[in-house]
Each structure stands twice: as C-alpha cells, then as structure tokens.
C-alpha cells in the first residue's frame, strides 16, 4: 500500500492550488492602439484658413466604425502647412502617439495620395538617414473639384522606397478623407 501513500501525498497539491483568489482581473491599458488621427492644415497665405481632418475610432477593433470629419473646403492655388497628430484616447489621459512616431522616425513613414482632385504633397520632416517621415508636410491643391485624400502611416517600411505599394511594412493607420477644393 506504500504506493497509495505516495499518491495520496499528491492530493494536498490540488487543494493548495485551488485556492479561490476571487480577484477580478485588472483592466488592461491598451497601449499601442491609435484611436484618433487629426490632420491640421494651415494656409500659408492666410493663417485664419485652417482645415482640420479627423478620424476617430474610440472602440478600436470594436464594431463601431471610425467617425471621419473634415472641417471645410480647401482653397485652390494655395498651399497648406500640414501636421499630423495621433492619439490613443483609450488611455486616460489620452496618450500622444505622435511623439513615439517621431522618436522612431526611421521605423515609420506617412504616405499621402489624392484621387479625384489634383494635389501635391511635400515631406517637411526626415529621419536621421535623410529619408522622409511625413508628420510635417505641405499640401498644395492644384485645382478646384472634389475627391479624396488618403493618409497612411506605415510601421517598418523599407526606407528609402518609391511609394506605398512597394514599401512593405505594415499599415498602422489608413484613412481616406473626402475633400472639396474651391
């Protein structure tokens, strides 16, 4: 019966480990989520002509779609100083992800494109290797019309590259804003 004595020794393990620590799990600080991208465009010629484009998805990968807003029309034949801010509003207070992107400038790049309307984009900030980053840029609407502007933040693209299609990496954020140029 010796074996049973040994086997019985095991039973206390069960009880020790079944201790009911009735703790509810702590909530998770979802750190890497980007909920909000705000693009601010300030007319070089007229400081009061400010257009804000924003996408906000407060439930992240939840079923609610992002809310996309554009504050007003752009003016043809001028140029705008553009800047982008990314926020994680799931954290309280909201975390500014922009700083992180700027710190890791060699691992990120913003890509711009337009369809339906003529637009020109010029990078205004660069990483340590002289490759474009894109948190600061210039947007120049070429002519009147309506169409869209797509802004894409890519993590770990091949740098330098000839554009989004061949840059590789993975897309952190991508939003298409409907725009009108007057």
């Amino acid at each position, binding site marked *: 019966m010796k*074996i049973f004595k040994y*086997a019985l020794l*095991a039973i206390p393990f069960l009880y020790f480990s079944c201790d009911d620590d009735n703790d*509810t799990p702590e909530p998770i600080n979802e750190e*890497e989520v980007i909920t909000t991208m705000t693009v601010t465009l300030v007319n070089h010629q007229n400081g009061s002509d400010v257009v804000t484009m924003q996408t906000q998805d407060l439930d992240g990968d939840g079923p609610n779609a*992002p809310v996309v807003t554009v504050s007003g029309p752009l003016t043809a034949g001028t140029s705008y100083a553009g800047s982008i801010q990314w926020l994680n509003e799931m954290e309280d207070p909201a975390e500014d992800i922009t700083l992180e992107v700027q710190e*890791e400038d060699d691992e990120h790049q913003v890509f711009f494109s337009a369809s339906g309307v003529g637009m020109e984009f010029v990078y205004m900030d660069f990483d340590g290797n002289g490759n474009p980053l894109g948190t600061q840029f210039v947007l120049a609407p070429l002519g009147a019309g309506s169409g869209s502007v*797509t802004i894409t933040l890519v993590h*770990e693209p091949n740098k330098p590259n000839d554009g989004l299609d061949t840059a590789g990496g993975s897309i952190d*954020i991508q939003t298409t804003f409907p725009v009108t140029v007057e």
Partner: protein
Amino acid sequence: MCGASFSSKLALTLYSFFSLCCINSFAQNCNNRLSIQVIDLHDGTPLENATVQTNDLLGTTDFDGNLIFENLCEDTYVLTISHEDCESLVQTVDIKKDTFRKIRLEHHLNELEEIMIISNNRNNSRTLFENKISKEVLDDYNSRTLGEVLKTVTGVSSLNSGSYLSKPVINGLHSSRVILINNGVRLEDQEWGIEHAPSIDINSIDKISIIKGASALKYAGDAVGGVIIAESSREKLLDTVYGNATTNLQSNGRGGSVSTNFTKTNSNGWYYRLQGTLKRMGDFETPEYVMTNTGFLEHNLSLKAGLNRIDHGFDIYYSLFSNRLGILRSSHAHTAIDIINAIENDIPHIIEDFSYDINIPRQKISHNLLKLRGFKNFDFGKLSLRYDFQSNDRKEYDIRRGDRTRPALDLNLQTHSIAFDLESKFENNSNLKTGISARYQKNFPDPATGVKRIIPDYKKYDFSLYSVFDIGLSNDWLLEAGMRYDFSHIDAYKYYRTSLWEARNYDELFPEFVVEDLGLNTLTNPKFDFHNISSNIGLKYSISNSENIFFNYSMSSRKPNPSELFSEGLHHSSARIEIGDLSFNSEVGHNFSLTYDSSNEKSSLVVNTFANLVDDFIYMIPVDLMPTIAGVFPYWEYKQEDAKLFGFDVKYDRQYFTNFFIGHQFSIIKGYERENDKPLINMPPVNLKNQISYSIPKMNNLNLSLESEYVFRQNEYPNNNFEVFIPTEDIYLTLDTSTPPGAYHLLNFASSIGFKSENGGNYKINLRIENLLNHHYKNYLNRLRYFTHEMGRNIMLSVSYNY
C-alpha cells in the same frame, strides 16, 4: 491453480502420501528419495507453495521451497511444477538412486514477459484499429517535430505555420478535436490555437498510437478527430543499464540536435530514467530565398523514476518542454492590404542573409508536466491512481511600436488532475475498465502586455466517469462498448468592448454576466456548465489469424473551447477580426469507421474508411468587412453548422524477393457543411506516397530507400475571398485567401547502416535527404503560404549509439 486453499492442498498431500505407501508396498526397489527445491530463476529465492505432480503423486513446497518424495521406484518420472501466477513447467527425472533436483521456475521472468507482451500489444481499444509509430521511425525523425513524424501515418497530415510549427490533422480535423496523451496525461497546452504546436518532445517517446475518428474513452470524450497516444517504453525487470545518444545535423536551417537518454533498472523493480534534448536551427531556406527569422531553439528534459513490480508499482515523471522560435519576419501583416501585397509579390518583402538570430516576431513556450502514478493489483482488478500537474506558459512577441519588448501575448495555463482507474479481467474473456477523474484548470493572461487579452482569465472544473467493457463473443468476434460522462464548469472573467457586447445582443441575452460597465469596456463573468455524454461501440471480426475487420461507431462530445466562446477582436497574426459566441453548445461527432487489416510475412494491407457526421460543428467563416482606423479588416465569426466528413485511406506494403520492399499509401478526405454542401476549409488534399527500399543485411543492415510524395491540388475549398478597397488607387482588389496552391511532388532519399561496437552497443548512421530535387512549392496546409514557399532540399545526417 496454485491458489487453492490450504486445506485442499493438505488433503491432496495426505492423499499422495497414502498413495505412495500403497505403491511402495507392491513395488520392488522402491526406496529412492527425490528431493526437490523450487526456486525463483530470477533471484534464487525459494518458492513456497509450488505444487509438484508426477503420475498420481502430488506435493507442495515448504517455506524454503523444499519438497521430498520418498519411496520412489526406479523409473522415469515426469514432473509438473506449478506456482501461483506461473505457467506450469514440465521436467523429466530418471530415478535410480536418491536424487536432488533444483528446479528453477521462471517466476518473475514469466510475469515480465507477460507484461512485455501486454505492453507491446496493449491497444487502447480492442475493436479499434490503431496506427502505430515504432521507435525506429521515431529515431529517424528525432530532430523533427511531433507533427512531422505523425504525417508518416496514412490519413494524418499536418497544419503548419511556417517550417517548424506543425499541428497534427487526423481525418481532416485538428486543434481541440485531436487529443494528445503524453505518458497517460492529457496534454493541456492551449491546443485550440491554430499556430500552437503540441508541446511534446519526440525524443522522450518510444511509441505512438493513433486512433482515428474516435475517442479513447479512458482519456477523453471530446476527441471528435482522433487521439494520439505517446508513451515511453516500460522499464525492464533486470539489473541493467541501457540508453542512447544521438547527434543530428541538417543542411537546411544549418543546425542540429543532440539527444540522450539513460535508464537504470533493477531486478527488484526500482528504476530511473533521464532524458534530454537540445535542438538549434537557424533560418530555413526555400530553393530561392532565405525565410528570415524562422530559426528556433528547443531544449527538453524528462526524468522518470519508480518501482515496477508485478502486482504493484508507482512512478514519478517530470518533463520540461521549452522552445523559442522565430515567426517568419514578413508574415507580420496588419491589414488585408498587407496580405494582398504579400500575395502579389510572391516572395517575402523582407529577405535577409542567413542568421541564427531569433528576432521578433517570435514565440516562447515552456511546458512543465509532473505526474505521480501508483497501481496495485487486487482480486477485483488493477487499481491505479494518478495525479498530474501541467503548467503551460506561452509568450508571443510581436513587432510593436515604441521600444516595447514585452510580449504581446502572455498566457499561463495550469492544470491539475487526479484520476482513479480500475481494470478488471473476467474469466469469460472479457475486460472492464472504469474510472473517475477530476480536473482543475486556470488560465491567466498577464495584463502587463498592454494588449487586449485574446483568451480571458478563466477557471475550469471538470469531472468525468467512464466505463468500457469488451468481451470475446467467440474465437472470431470481439465486442466493445463504452460510455463516458463529462461535466465541465467554466468560470471566466472578461472585459468585453461595450460596443461589441451590445452589438451581439449579449446585453439582452446574458445580462447576468455583467459585473461592471466601465464605459469603453464591460467587465463580465460568464459561467457555463456543460454535460457531455460520449460513447463507443465496436466489433472486431477475425477472418483468420492474419485478417481482421474492425467496425466502430463512436459518439464524441466536445464543449466549445475558450477561443470559440470568447474571441473578440483583432487577431494580429491572421490580420482579421475574430468573434466567438457565448451561446455555443457542445459539438457532437458521430463517427463510423470500417477497417480491413491483413498482414503476413510478405505483405500487409490496411484499408480504412470513415464517415464523421458532426452536429453543431464549430468553425469560422468571414461574414463581413469591418472598418477600423487601421483600415478595413475581414470580420470572421465562429459559427455552428452541421458538417460531414468522409474518406478512406489505404496502406499496402509488400516485400519482393528477400531484400526489396515496396510501400504505397493513399488517402482522400472530403468535408462539407451538411446544409449546403459547401466545402470545409483546410481539408487535406488527396495524397499518394510510394516508397521503394532495398536492404542488404550482410552489409551492416544497409538500407536504401526512395520515397515519392505526390500531393494533389485541393480542388474543393470554400470561397472566402472578398473585395478590399484600396483608397490610394480608388479601386477594389480581391483578397484571395482561399485559392489553394498547385499540386506538388517531392522525392526523399533515406539510408541507414548499423555497426556493432565491441562493448555490445550498436551504432546507427542515418542519411536522409528531403526534397531531393529542391522543388519550389507552396503547401495549402501552411497558414503562412501567402507569404512564403516551403523548405528546399534538406540533407540530414544522424549518428546514434545505443547501449
């Protein structure tokens, strides 16, 4: 039988004494004495109560094993010596004068042999055909994974994530539907995940049995796909030391493995065994490029010690499986567009020079298993008690923004279980196995990851009862019937996205689960009870000694796994949103199988057919697209639909002349949803394997063989493609994740040669070349096929020494 009562033996002895007198009074020259001592051949101990019978004389040995027959005439006597639990021994003695005879009865050894025989043929069911993988095959695959070695069995394939992560698929089913038993313990290692490979080292195993399409009710009732039983061999009851050391080198991955095991056994039953494995590989290579970040490091250890006696014994077993493995760097996709780009490019967008580095993304897994087991034989059968503890730790590191080096997934799954089993044999050639077991499991996802938990915190309590009865109805017919009841209680805590909780109507269906509404998230406490019945009925008909037919019907009931119940949100590694369902009930499989098995010295044939009707089959389909700030994601939901799977496989081996051996294997599996006949995803394609071997026993058992493996294209697959809007180009593109890659044909070469060393051990050298022609191909059952091709040529050399 030796177990007769003392009084009856006494009577017999007295009777023989009187008979002796009578013989004596009528015979001449009848004053010879025969002294007998009966001892244990094994350790020389005298055997008390052995009976010795000759003509009409009968006696039993005393405490010292002695017995004396007096007044024997000159003659030849045939002695029949028997002892409890032993087969009788017959010896002849010529009596001319007083004679002493020491008789060695193979007491222990007889029992040992019996155990060995039982062990070798020990099937988990007597009416189910079991496919076995022998130690020899395991040795040939000692640098590989369990999933790869299981593929040598007809009808078994593997679902891969890259080159190393390989999950067994039995008759088209995998993950939670395939149960793995490691040395009597059900492996609890988060097997639900498609990119989770079984945590088991093949070097710690000596034998694998595969039961297709049915549960081994002793272990589980929920094996809708099948059961894989891995065991180490039983220790010998001899004073000996044996073991093995193996070194393996391979060209693809530019790495290798070393593995060793050592066993010390004693004739008194005590033994111990140590075993360890170390494997290291760098990046694997396709014929055209390096698969960057696919290397791995694995180290495993197992210890076993115990007492192995005939009628009682116990053992303690501990094993550690741990690895660190790289996930193909370019398989990191965040959005559907990333996958489209990968498919269009045909080669990965990141290819670096060969390296041994294991960078992010990677997995780090460790699995600890501790088992204590004891058994004792009683009049009513063999009773055993088992306790086991398992701790599975899984960390997945993903490419993260910021300098976040913490894992993105960190799960710890702890399982305790305790089981009593009773095996009884009856005289009418029937056996009854019954058992009762309880299990406690706790999953802890570490919140420090800063990433939403994929699998929530939960506690699970299981309780089961089973009984399996088999009976030989005649010499030819064997019947087995079994039943099992499983109760499970799940108590989970999970933060749901409030928007999802409401969108799925859970706020109306399960308001009792809500603990607290925190705005963005809702803390819930889902609790479920599952009562499941599974059963099995089987018949085996022996047409002749070499031909058998097996018929089996088994009903398996599987409760939904945590992933199927609780998934909600973006699964980064598959770039899709996966949604489980709290209202699922258990999946019930009805499996019918018919197997014909014929084997003789020259050839063997196994034909296996099956039909598996699975009610409430749980599987995932894409239902929609979901826009998020990171782009549009396919939205996959777990669904419950009735499904049917059927197929057959054939294995035929034949020896020609004395040295040629030709083998063929063919298998076909079809799976559909029952309602609309839509094909099921990831069904293994038809495959055909042929092998030709030539052996020269005189030349150190030189064996040369060539294997051909043809895998057809899977032509039946669900079309889960969808359109993805590409905003930068203002167009829609089709994301084709469904279309299977083409057929492929691989040639493998294998050779082995053995040498005896002077000290009694032997060396074996294996040379194996896989994908001999360096064929560039993709595999439908590789989850990373959108991103990469399969491994190119691989030359493997292994040297093993057995002692």
